[in-house]
């Protein structure tokens, strides 16, 4: 086995030529000043009034100019769901594909077009129910994609069935006596699937959302961003405690790389580790309060943090759980192609066809 590949695998850090590339280093940029407006398409937005998707769209359109990429090199691919209507509202290249398959479609595109910035827009049903397998495989392959997972903990477009992130016992159209399935924790699932970048943010906190998008796009490889999104029709106020000024400081744990993990007004509370490795709240000034490290090669701390939130959403961490470098599938593929050309020269069709035993009849 090619040893340089192997030590990439073993040390979990990118080796080889591409070690220090950033997210969109290969995507052509423009000097022209861009505005959010240019990224708005001419299509009428068709979400329910009050839907959290509007805020995410506005934040995304507001953020894109920051990247300074040529607009024609930005592609947004979605599956099916309310959230997946997103691409229609962006004046970039886009595809509103089929349910759950956006990560796989984006994989084919990103693997063959390193000059594109490829975004995936998906929902909790699209990404975690029908699309779960494509998601976890994209994460382990670490293809250069930025995946925004709109988690409203419900199936919106099909009018309100419970989703894989719905809390147990949820009463919905398909579960009149309450849902039975124990929900996925998208962060835990992603970390278990070898994700290199995992973060969580909230539709209503534009500043935080934008900061997370910035980090996600700087990361080379698959970035998974879970966005808590309100569906005011079928699951209204699912995240209200994380948003309401009265409650949010006590419920939210804001993760910052290199910072002590504290929460509550004036950081009166902190997070420390139990002997069994799990995390628990403590006084904010407790000396054992943990310091967050998004770059830790081992995902254990990030995983422990993903288990912190309680069913009532108290101690819900937001921010970047994990951000480590590892070679990306698309870079490695490109390397193999150039290596092959370097070794064998550009493919010669005539030579190929006549390879092996041939004979000639005069």
């Amino acid at each position: 086995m090619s040893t340089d590949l192997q030590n990439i695998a073993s040390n979990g850090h990118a080796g080889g030529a591409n070690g220090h590339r950033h997210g969109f280093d290969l995507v052509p940029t423009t000097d022209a000043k861009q505005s959010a407006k240019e990224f708005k398409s001419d299509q009428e937005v068709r979400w329910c009034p009050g839907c959290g998707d509007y805020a995410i769209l506005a934040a995304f359109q507001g953020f894109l100019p920051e990247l300074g990429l040529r607009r024609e090199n930005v592609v947004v691919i979605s599956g099916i769901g309310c959230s997946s209507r997103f691409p229609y509202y962006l004046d970039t290249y886009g595809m509103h594909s089929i349910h759950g398959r956006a990560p796989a479609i984006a994989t084919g595109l990103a693997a063959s077009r390193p000059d594109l910035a490829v975004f995936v827009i998906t929902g909790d049903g699209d990404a975690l129910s029908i699309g779960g397998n494509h998601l976890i495989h994209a994460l382990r392959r670490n293809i250069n994609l930025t995946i925004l997972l709109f988690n409203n903990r419900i199936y919106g477009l099909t009018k309100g069935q419970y989703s894989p992130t719905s809390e147990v016992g949820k009463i919905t159209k398909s579960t009149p006596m309450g849902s039975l399935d124990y929900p996925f924790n998208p962060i835990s699932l992603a970390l278990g699937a070898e994700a290199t970048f995992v973060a969580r943010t909230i539709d209503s906190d534009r500043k935080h959302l934008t900061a997370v998008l910035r980090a996600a796009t700087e990361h080379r490889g698959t970035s998974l961003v879970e966005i808590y999104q309100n569906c005011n029709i079928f699951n209204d106020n699912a995240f209200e405690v994380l948003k309401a000024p009265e409650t949010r400081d006590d419920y939210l744990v804001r993760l910052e790389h290199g910072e002590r993990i504290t929460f509550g007004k004036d950081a009166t509370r902190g997070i420390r580790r139990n002997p069994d490795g799990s995390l628990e709240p403590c006084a904010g000034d407790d000396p054992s309060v943990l310091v967050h490290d998004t770059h830790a090669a081992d995902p254990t701390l990030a995983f422990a943090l993903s288990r912190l939130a309680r069913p009532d959403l108290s101690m819900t961490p937001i921010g970047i759980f994990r951000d480590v470098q590892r070679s990306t599938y698309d870079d490695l593929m490109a390397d193999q192609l150039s290596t092959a050309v370097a070794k064998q020269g550009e493919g010669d069709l005539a030579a190929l066809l006549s390879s092996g035993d041939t004979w000639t009849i005069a």
Partner: protein
Amino acid sequence: MSGKQVQQVDRVIIRFAGDSGDGMQLTGDRFTSETAAFGNDLSTLPNFPAEIRAPAGTLPGVSSFQLHFADHDIMTPGDAPNVLVAMNPAALKANVAELPAGADIIANSDEFGARACQRVGYSASPLEDGSLSNYKVTAVPLTSMTVEALKDFDLSKKEAERAKNMFALGLLSWMYHRPTESTLEFLERKFAKAPEIAKANIAAFQAGYNFGETTEAFSVSYEVKPAAMRPGTYRNISGNLALAYGLIAASKATGLPLFLGSYPITPASDILHELSKHKAFGVRTFQAEDEIAGVTAALGASFGGALGVTTTSGPGVALKSEAIGLGVMLELPLVICDIQRGGPSTGLPTKTEQADLLQAMFGRNGEAPVAIVAAQSPSDCFAAALEAARLATKYRTPVFVLSDGYLANGSEPWLLPDVTTLPDLHVDFATAPNHEAADGAAQFWPYVRDEKTLARAWAVPGTPGLEHRVGGLEKANGSGNISYDPNNHDLMVRLRHAKIEGIANDIPPLEIDDPSGDAAVLVLGWGSTYGPIGAACRRVRAQGLPVAQAHLRHLNPFPANTGEVLARYSKVLIPEMNLGQLALLIRAKYLVDAIRYDKVAGMPFKAAELAAVIAETIESVKKP
């Protein structure tokens, strides 16, 4: 050459049979290239179990390779072998039933011990109990002679025994006057890293050759003169290899980088294996997590301007159905190669069948027409792949290539095409706006169509000013915006249909082979039945009965002249390795009372069997 008698024959059918572990496929491959190099026409038929290596000496473990070679051009691997090489009792038991009386059997007597015989239900050794009296049996202790021949090598008995297939190959090479150089070179190449093994195999091969020359057991050897073939350079090629080469050629011809999204499945996996070797051609192969990811990744690549291809077999096609429907809606190029195998469900993974035609036609929700081309022989897979890519890129549509297990693994000589004469399939991407908005602004509309082909404008990401969105919801014709308008939907359904139908004007007419010109019966076929049907027609004609043959390259749409051709004959016979799938389409479209001859046994038709059916049909017409 010894003073033994040499007999001239015009054709021979040999079958090598043994355990999955005995290397029969390799032995067959070698004999095939010796034969090819010698200049005979040939056709091969490998046949192996779905298990990797069922325990040695068991019936499920038997693997075989049949080769038909001749001094004239032939079309099939042959109905029944003249010679069976049986490496053990299981191999004999599994194959003897197919031998005609008088056939030669060369059996490895070392393996016919009592236990081995009982294991497959022989109470006594069939080599001794006279039960094979209808055949010419030669018992040869292949194993022990091989070990003996290699005694000076530093090899364990086990290692030495492994070379017994080469001993057998040597013996048969002598019997049929095969040139041996290519095999010697091959063995040196194959075992370059283990010279001792190379030498041993060569020694075993030569020992077998010399044994033939010296032993009394074989009094005659046979000579099959080279066949007269069109001048040019040839190679022997299997269907899967030809298909892989065809896709690479298509990438060159279209100027689009090849992207293969695939998930391994028998008998298609070898195409993935082959293409993964050719990264120097810019070929990207993606082994996906499943078939759905394979085809959707290919669609994603096509969206980016690649030639998106996916390779699979029937069960994989079933899984890809929804995504192929998306391809129909997106109107993007996509080539789907279905290497058909025995079905339904998991079915008979290593056997051949042509029962996916209707799945390819109709296996999607809604009205979702696609183009379908089929390969008719192993080497023809090259041309079929090229044609599929031409249609996919020109008409922006998914296109099926239908091959099958027989074509995939079978092989035949291939006259190498002159690559400089390959068609130019260059694709024009949209580079500028194609619509003027009410306010006079220049816009790009992704669903503006070419009047002639009805293909939509194809703009790839990275093209400034042509940013647009596509998707699976119904699109307004022209603008491509989401549209729930009833009349637009009806229009789009008909446009997508008309686009595929229109291909009929862009493909060659259906050709008829009717030497006598006065045939009343037409035999119509598609896919891998070409060889058997052709061979059968020859036999029938040899009996003085006139018959016409036509074979469809395009299954959707049919060539424009198909109806008119069918009308010319009083009977149309359609032999298929399914329950009448082409017949159904022909009957529905042309209201012709086509007669079916269906066999779904996982094996190609035998020429004799078809010849009988054709003759009968002709007779039935004669009757008043």
